[in-house]
């Protein structure tokens, strides 16, 4: 791809990304007041989307990934996100070292 072509692709992706970010709100304000079922769906957005995002990486990634995720999930009950990541990565690296070494 040419340099100009790549720059145009980047800008097109940027416009698209912005439209997705403002679009949901612009559509929704036309439907206020919200029906309780819509309200319930919006309340569930973080759980549904984040769950859908990570499910394959955790469940289909392999035993090391699954165990590291379970440990990280347990850590999340007590500590902040930094510790979730640190503990998960440490477990993952150790397990990967054991299985390949």
């Amino acid at each position, binding site marked *: 791809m040419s340099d100009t072509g790549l720059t145009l692709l980047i800008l097109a992706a940027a416009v698209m990304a912005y439209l997705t970010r403002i679009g949901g709100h612009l559509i929704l304000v036309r439907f206020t007041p919200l029906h309780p079922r819509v309200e319930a769906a919006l309340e569930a957005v973080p759980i549904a989307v984040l769950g859908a995002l990570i499910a394959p990486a955790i469940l289909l990634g392999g035993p090391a990934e699954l165990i590291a995720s379970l440990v990280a999930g347990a850590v999340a009950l007590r500590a902040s996100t930094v510790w979730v*990541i640190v503990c998960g990565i440490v477990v993952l690296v150790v397990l990967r070292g054991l299985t390949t070494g």
Partner: protein
Amino acid sequence: MDTGALPHETVRGDALAGGLASLTILPAIAPFGMLYGALAINAGFEPWQAWLASATIYAGASQYLMLEMLGQSLSPPAILLAMLAINFRHVLYSAALGRHLGQFSRVQKALAFGLMVDPVFAAGEQRARRTGTLGTRWYFGYALAVYAVWMLFNVLGTTFGALVPDPASWGLDYVLPLYFLGLLMGFRASAGFAPVLGAAVLGSIGMHLTLGAPWHILGGSLAGLAVAVWRAPSRPASGS
């Protein structure tokens, strides 16, 4: 939060409080941003093109996908469609977060949505649920800190890219799922957490095994939302 504080003290402290709140997730964003810079250079981007992508697209997962698809020489429309599939979750974020932006002016809203990446959305939602309000200063303090760190580490990645080790050997390839897992667990006290999550996971895995990535995001999200709608109390058919 000190509810006895004078209004101007609360407001002044809020931008700092927002920035400080972001500290817990900045360590996750830094390697992610640095790796993107390095991989973009490897993929043939000029440094300024990598910066342009990060500054304007500002959606890391879709930017990684773009690099991967460029490497496979796929056509621009196909690349944009796949990026849209990944970024469609922003439409849902936007609809949900928009309910909490009552204090924001039009311009502030336009900027707030531009800065709304996964952690900013998750933190904004949590802030609004816990304190009952989402202030402009807190939001922008948080969101701008995330943006600044993302850009800084992008520049470091494009400059010192060769110093970044093989991501898999350090587990860096798994930072993102763990990071989203941490964000997700922050909502475990919400009503319907288990059934919504269960449906989202089933839908996501089902789509991943059939249509494949990135359609699992859309499929899983809609399955989770469907369960939330189904569980919701329906109002008697009076009024609208």
